[in-house]
Each structure stands twice: as C-alpha cells, then as structure tokens.
C-alpha cells in the first residue's frame, strides 16, 4: 500500500464512494431540497469549467458566457416540448446543443479576435444581452421562443426510456428525481473535468496559456492564434451548451429571465474566486458560490427574526449584498483566488514584491 500509485487509486475510490453516497447523506440530513441545490451546483460547476477554458486558460475575458447556456437550454426546449411538437431524445439534443453553442462561440469569437482585455469584456457583455433580448422578443411575427413567458412543459431527461422526473425504485431503494439528476449531472461533470484536464495538458492547452501570457510571443512561436482562440471560444461555449440543455430538462421550463447578465457575472466570479485556470479551484469556486447563497437564503430569515424580532432585509438582497462584498474582499486580499494555480500564485507574489 505504500506505493503512491495505489494511494492515488484508493483516494479516487474513496472520493467516488463519497460522491455516490452524497445525495443520500444530504437528503436524509437536510432534506431533498438540498439535493436540488447540489444539482444546480453541479450545473454551475460545468459552466464554470467551460468559462475557465476561455478566461482561465486562454485569458479572454468573457462577460456574456451565459448566452451559450441559454442557447443550449433553448435548443433543448424547442426540440423536446409541445411548443413545436418535437420530442427528441436527450442523447440527440445534448451533442447538438454542444455543437450549436460552439458555433455561437465562433460567431462571437470571429469578430472579436483583435480585441483584448476590457474591450473584449464589453463586447461579450453586449453579445450576451443581444441573445437575451432576442429570446425575449422572438415571439412575433413568428413565435419561436414564446417571448418573456418562456417555454414550459419541456420533456424531462429520459435515459433508456426512464424519465428522471419521477422517483425510481431499484432493489427496494428509492431514488427520488433529484437524486437521479444528481447522478446524471455528476457523470457529465466528471466527463467535463476529465476533458478539461486532458485539454490543459495538451498542445492546444499549452497554446492557450501561451496566448494568455503573451499573444505576440505566442504568434512568433508559430501558434495560429486565430484558430486557437476560436477553438477556446467554441470549446468553452460547447460546455455551456451541454449544461444549458441539462438545465432545461431538469427545470422543464426556460425563460429569458434565467439568462441575465448577473448570471454571467456569477459564473465569472466562480472562476475568478476559485482560481483562474486551476481546475480544482474553479470547481471549488462553483460549489461555494452555488451552495453558500442557498445556505444564506435558508439561514437569514430565522437569524434576523432571532436577532431583531423581524426580517429587516429580504434574503435575496442580503444574498446579493454579501455576494458583492465577497467579490471585493477576495480581490483585495486574495487576488489570485481561493485556490490558485501554483504558477499563477508565484506570479502574483512576484507582482506584489515589485
């Protein structure tokens, strides 16, 4: 057992068992609504990992990332709901969602290739808003998105004919719907983590980092910066598209409201707070920012009632307030993120020493 390789395997198996048992522990301990929170947290982790490719690896600041999530979600909604009378299976929609979102990524990336930094941030922000505005307004003259009302009665995700929206009994153990979605999301999250790790170590991944560090030098080293940047946009967007499709199947309802700028900012914050470009950090950031606000939402009202005898701040605004303050505080005191990449940490320290 002293072999480090064995230790690594043992650790992985333990983590796997823990992840598999997690919904039961959380569900029994805190209630199934918390398993739902976990489901959303996994969706956010997928989004954060997708954005991490664009922002963390390639260094392209994207403030409209939620648009790709929206594209994936709407694609699922249109292809699997009574709205157009289509009921495609999920395994056909998700790859298509990845593809279409990737195309949108290229659509955004192509005109903005020359831009860097703040300019890119603003253009991507505008792009995100344009997508949302179109979703809000494409109900006339031809009703495509059903406007602000959104699309409802979306088909739940079905695997081998079994809908995940109903609880399932296997050998006497009951799996509620949220547990089933948890396992589906967990599987896809692990897939995305795996792809991210492999990408990071690949030729493309190193090309992205090279572009992030110095675009001109990267170009001089023979990297086709145009294609590599477009690839970053497309890859990041496709993760968002998959995640969006899952969101639509899970919620069984989509509306433009879910895809506002605040959501983009939220995902960006997950990446930045966790530690840009560092996959474990980004996962941590995604989980923290998805779960803590929920905890706050549940804890804030009773706490205020106990302290002041009445509810002074409604939990939603308190959540946003603390969220904003946390952003400022983390940037001031840990600008490299909570769990930064070793190289980046060194860079920040060097920056400080100057």
């Amino acid at each position, binding site marked *: 057992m002293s072999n480090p390789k064995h230790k690594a395997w043992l650790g992985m198996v333990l983590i796997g068992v823990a992840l598999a048992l997690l919904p039961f522990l959380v569900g029994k301990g805190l209630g199934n609504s918390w398993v739902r929170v976990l489901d959303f947290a996994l969706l956010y982790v997928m989004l954060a990992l997708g954005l991490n490719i664009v922002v963390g690896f390639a260094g392209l*600041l994207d403030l409209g990332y939620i648009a790709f999530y929206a594209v994936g979600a709407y694609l699922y909604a249109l292809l699997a709901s009574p709205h157009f009378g289509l009921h495609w299976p999920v395994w056909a929609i998700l790859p298509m969602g990845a593809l279409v979102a990737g195309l949108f990524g290229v659509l955004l990336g192509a*005109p*903005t290739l*020359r*831009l*860097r*930094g*703040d*300019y890119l*941030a*603003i*253009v991507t*922000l*505008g*792009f995100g*808003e*344009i997508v949302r*505005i*179109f979703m*809000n*307004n494409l109900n006339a003259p031809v009703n495509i998105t059903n406007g602000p009302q959104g699309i409802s009665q979306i088909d739940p995700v079905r695997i081998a004919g079994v809908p995940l929206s109903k609880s399932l009994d296997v050998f006497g153990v009951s799996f509620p719907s949220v547990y089933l979605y948890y396992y589906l999301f967990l599987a896809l999250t692990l897939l995305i983590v795996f792809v991210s790790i492999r990408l990071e170590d690949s030729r493309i991944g190193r090309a992205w980092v090279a572009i992030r560090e110095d*675009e001109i030098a990267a170009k001089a080293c023979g990297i086709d910066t145009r294609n590599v940047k477009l690839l970053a946009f497309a890859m990041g967007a496709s993760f968002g598209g998959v995640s969006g499709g899952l969101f639509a199947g899970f919620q069984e309802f989509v509306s433009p409201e879910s895809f506002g*700028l605040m959501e983009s*900012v939220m995902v*960006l*914050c997950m990446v*930045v707070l966790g530690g*840009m470009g560092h996959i474990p950090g980004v996962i941590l950031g995604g989980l923290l920012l998805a779960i803590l606000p929920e905890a706050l939402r549940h804890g804030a009202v009773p706490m205020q009632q106990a302290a002041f005898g009445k509810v002074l*701040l409604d939990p939603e*605004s308190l959540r*946003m*307030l603390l*969220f*904003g*303050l*946390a*952003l*400022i505080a983390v*940037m*001031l005191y840990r*600008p490299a993120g909570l769990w930064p990449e070793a190289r980046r940490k060194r860079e*920040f320290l060097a*920056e400080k020493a*100057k």
Partner: protein
Amino acid sequence: MDTFIQQIINGLVLGSIYALVALGYTMVYGILGLINFAHGEVVMIGALTALTVIKLLADSGLPGTVVVLIGLLAAVPVCMALGFTIERIAYRPLRNAPRLAPLITAIGVSIVLQQLAMIFWGRNYHAFPPILPTSSREIGGAHITDVQIVIILLAVAIMAGLMLLVNRTRLGRAMRATAENPQIAGLMGVNINVIISATFLIGSALAAVAGVMVSANYSIAHYHMGFILGLKAFTAAVLGGIGNLPGAMLGGVLLGLIESLGAGYIGDLTGGFLGSHYQDVFAFFVLILVLVFRPSGLMGEKVAERA
C-alpha cells in the same frame, strides 16, 4: 419629416445625458486604464438622492426650478463622496494588480450599490413630482420642452467647462500628464493620488447631474436604472475613442441619435431607455461594429491592443 425632427431632438437630449455619463468613464479610463463598472450606479444614486430631496420640498411652495436645483446641489456632493470612496476602497489597493482584479471589484461595488439602493429606496419606481414647467416650443412641427432645452444647454455648458478645466488649468495639466504616464508625472511632482481622486470627484459630479437629468426627462427613477445607462454611456465612450474627452461627447450624442432614430423608424417603438427592448440592441450592435472596424473609436488615436 416631423417625426424625423422629433427623433433628432429626442436623440440630442438622450445623447447629452449619455455624453455626461460617458465623460466619467472616459476620464477614469484615460488615467487608470480601468472600466469603472460602478459609474452607472453612481448616476442612479445621484438621481434617487435628488429625487428624495425634491419630493421633500415639492410642497414647500418654492418654485419648481429652485427645488430641482436644490435637489441637484444635494446629489452632487453625495455622488462625489461616493466616487471618492469607491476609488479608495475598491481600486486604489489594486492599482498594480492584474487588470482583471479591479474589474471584478468594480462589479462587486456595482452589485453592492444596487442592493443598498434597493434596501434604502425600495423596489418601486419613483415618479418625479410634476413641479417643472411643462411648456414646450415648436421647431419644424416637432416639440421640445423647456426642460429638454435646459438639459441640452446645461450639458453643453458643463462640457465646455470641463474642457477648459482639462486644457487650461494646473489641475487639468496634471491630469493629462498622469494619463500620459503616471510614473513620470509622479517624478515631475504631480501627486498622482490627488489627481486620481480629483478625476473620480469630477466624474461623479457629472454623474449626479446626468442622474437628475434622466429622472427629470423621463419623470422616473429606480434602483435598477444605473446598469443599462452605464453600459450605454460606456458604449458611447468607446464609440468616441475611450480616454478621449471630445470623443466621449461626440460618441454620446451620436449614440443618442442612433438609438432614437433607430427606435423611431424600426416600428412603433418609443424613445427612452424604458422603451422597447430592441432599442437596447442598437447600442450593442453599434459597439460591436465600431470595435470591429475602428477599434480605437472615432476620435481615438490609441491602438486597440492595449491590454
């Protein structure tokens, strides 16, 4: 033809307001190379502060214009204090940090201000009390209210004053030097921190004026108004060439005209930033087009790849 002139007038009014806000963005960007994301919220706080004072004094018997002036005079110092504090807390400690850090704190400040405003002023829309004269004049079949005339004239006067300040005074020269190269300006005896604070103070004062103008023109203010206004003003600043003061003014007026003409002719959409949603799309399309074809803006001389 009447509609055309009417849309031009609306566009000029809207554009003057954008220009005032855009100046705040462009001055900060010129000196710090930073998008002050929270600037739109400063405009919002200015509008709501002024509105609160104006509502308090609405029944005092003072003439309407005096009441609005008092509201404005109350809003300006509040916004200046706010701008000063924002820079101190969120930007100054990060001056040498990587570029993303202050952008994130700016987003954080923006969220915090919006939530505080919501807690303080509530989620509701606040109506501007009808104390200003509603008289209007006719130009070529189109109407322009006296309030709108004052908005345009005041904006022009303020911008002229700002140009004088920047080009003719000691403070202005120090500001230009800092924008050119902060280290060297510091070596030449310019106190950079004072200059940066001054920039935020001036920008915030302009934001307060713009906030009052917006709420007077549309007769409404709410805690959420700052975001989209700020975004458009930033677009205006980029359109004109960010970091360039006359550029921000030109960009603001042009964006106002584009939006108002675009909205007027795309169909039955109405003007104003509370209007139809497609109006907002114009601003973003303009922004993307400008950045693709002329990334340094109409009057900017800097290269786009300034990152």
